[in-house]
């Protein structure tokens, strides 16, 4: 049985490169299934072409680019500060980490020192943003697994963070808050108090989430042993973040290549050795707790002072010629920005390293022989944000 529907002529099929390339293999018992770009659990416009035998996946090939917005090219057309708002759009869930990666690269390029208070503000806001990012992942993942309610609880907590962050940043989702040499606006006492209150509130909720979701027998049976990723695979595909930590390697940019003031805080890098979807789930849930710890320590020890260095770059600022690379730990893994400057007011080249792209590339290999339902569970455990992958 070939799966060419009679109402399609061959010419129609030929229009799509991937469908044409992806004809059924030698066994004719399989069908070609397009999962996405419009599918409820690819969260956006990821498309995966699947060859399935019944519900078992024989081959899977991710097709990207449906949300490609040429962010890297745009960098070459805009000045350094004009380009900053793009960063909030690359990964809308952890926008501040991308902010940080970009301003960090600019600072390294020009050798700008950042005031201590600004560093603390960056840590607090970025960690709050990380918690928000993980909460969205948590809710959406449970939605993928068929549980409708958790996402509303997660969004209730996330709302608290958004309300907090909107005061200093002026935005609720696509922040462009950091500036080369500091941050755009100072935070006040209320914000600090709110952040501490949130940490207390969130700990209660995490306990509840553990009782209601993590310990649920159906949930555990869906995740345990599903989609095991070996460390070797992580190395081959360049997987970072919770994916590699779920496979047992305690690699976190905040510890491995310490930047800013992260070396002053006590926090652990959670890992699990199992490498399955449950391992990645546990790592992220534990990271929420660690982020709260960092927030509390930073709020307690934040110094007074300037929030931006004197003579910080303005819109028409010209960067010195050279190259700089800066990496931060985002919610999904290692975020890297590589800037090449020719001495003008615009980057000559800007390379964005998106962790989601590497993490997603694993999927084709681990998807062989699994069930369709497990594919959804694995995709969710990789925490994909499509705009970040496509950039």
């Amino acid at each position, binding site marked *: 049985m070939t799966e060419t529907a009679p109402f399609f002529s061959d010419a129609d099929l030929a229009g799509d490169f991937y469908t044409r390339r992806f004809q059924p293999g030698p066994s004719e018992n399989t069908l070609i299934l397009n999962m996405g770009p419009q599918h409820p659990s690819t969260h956006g416009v990821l498309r995966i072409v699947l060859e399935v035998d019944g519900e078992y996946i024989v081959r899977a090939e991710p097709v990207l680019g449906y949300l490609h917005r040429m962010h890297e090219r745009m960098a070459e057309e805009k000045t350094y500060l004009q380009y900053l708002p793009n960063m909030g759009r690359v990964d809308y869930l952890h926008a501040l980490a991308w902010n940080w990666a970009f301003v960090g690269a600019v600072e390294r390029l020009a050798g700008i020192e950042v005031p201590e208070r600004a560093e603390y503000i960056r840590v607090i806001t970025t960690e709050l943003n990380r918690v928000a990012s993980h909460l969205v992942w948590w809710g959406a993942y449970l939605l993928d697994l*068929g549980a409708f309610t958790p996402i509303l609880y997660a969004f209730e907590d996330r709302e608290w963070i958004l309300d907090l962050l909107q005061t200093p940043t002026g935005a609720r989702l696509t922040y462009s808050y950091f500036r080369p040499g500091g941050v755009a606006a100072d935070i006040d006492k209320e914000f600090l108090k709110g952040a501490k209150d949130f940490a207390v509130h969130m700990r209660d909720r995490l306990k509840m989430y553990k009782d209601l979701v993590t310990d649920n027998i*159906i949930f555990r*049976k869906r995740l345990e042993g599903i989609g095991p990723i070996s460390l070797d695979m992580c190395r081959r595909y360049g997987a970072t973040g919770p994916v590699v930590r779920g496979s047992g390697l305690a690699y976190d940019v905040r510890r491995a290549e310490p930047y800013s003031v992260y070396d002053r805080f006590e926090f652990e890098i959670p890992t699990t050795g199992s490498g399955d979807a449950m391992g990645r789930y546990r790592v992220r849930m534990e990271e929420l707790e660690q982020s709260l710890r960092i927030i509390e320590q930073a709020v307690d020890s934040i110094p007074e002072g300037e929030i931006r260095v004197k003579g910080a770059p303005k819109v028409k600022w010209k960067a010195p010629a050279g190259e700089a690379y800066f990496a931060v730990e985002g919610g999904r893994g290692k975020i890297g920005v590589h800037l090449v400057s020719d001495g003008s007011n615009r980057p000559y080249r800007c390379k964005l390293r998106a962790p989601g792209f590497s993490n997603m590339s694993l999927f084709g290999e681990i998807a062989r022989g699994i069930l369709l339902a497990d594919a959804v569970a694995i995709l969710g455990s990789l925490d994909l944000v499509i705009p970040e992958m496509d950039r």
Partner: protein
Amino acid sequence: MGSFSIPVELIRIVVGVVAIAAFVALNAIILVYLERKVAGHIQRRPGPFEVGPHGILQTVADALKLVGKQLIKPAGADAFLFWLAPVLGFLPIFLFFLPMPFGPVLTTLEVPLGLLLILAFAGLNVLAICIAGWGSNNKWSLLGAARGVAQSVAYEIPLLLALLAVVFMKGSMNLSKIIDSQGAWPWQWNIVLQPLAFLIYFICAIAETNRAPFDLPEAESELTAGFHTEYSGMGFGLFFLAEYANMVVVCAVATTVFLGGWKGPFFSGSWWFLAKVYLLLMLMFWPRWTYPRVRFDQLLNFNWKWLMPLALANLLVTAFIMKVG
């Protein structure tokens, strides 16, 4: 004079069928509202709130919207099968309610084998899912249909075995007789004699009506919407109506067989029947909004490795006790 007279039974059936149609439609509207409210409160939000006081007219508005929508048949779909499926899914509903004793005299048709009638026609639902999945010319629908068939066939067996245990004890498949044999107080109901059978029946009933956590044929995060992906307007509406009507049917059967039907401690009558049915329906809503979905192989394993042997053992023990005691 041999004047022409209409047999009383025929009038009874016609009136009954009209009443059933009204009951099914009204119930669906109330149930959808109720479910959305229950879901809302489980999710810490008010649920429908805008149309009418506390949103009570929301489902009416939704139903009107659904009726007004264009019916679209995908290119390449088998027109006959595609339109047959929703009708086939909906029509058996009337047959389910025919022998149902709503109250002491509120039975449309007294059938000696009432339970058998209901169970026999419950099988038609599978056919509707199967036809819808095949006729839609959509791969996701086809996968949903395949799941639906495997699931329904598997879960029908322990469901039958669980009911059979009660039938063994009462020696009748007449629903009214089964109610007559039970008392008014909760400890005189069959659930006390057959708690395991009730549990098995209820789990199977959730699976039979494709409700979460066993909603695999329509699993929207996996199969977009499963077998009814391609249906719009009332094509989808009939499936939706049938789903809610089926829920009422399985709960009504549970009420009749296990919970004493319309009998209650005080003022026995139809209200007890409705109250019990709605209590069970609430129990069916609950897991949908609190549990994740099981995987397909887990679903079948659970059935073949746990429910089936348990139901069989329950039946054997019941038969043994009936014979000896």
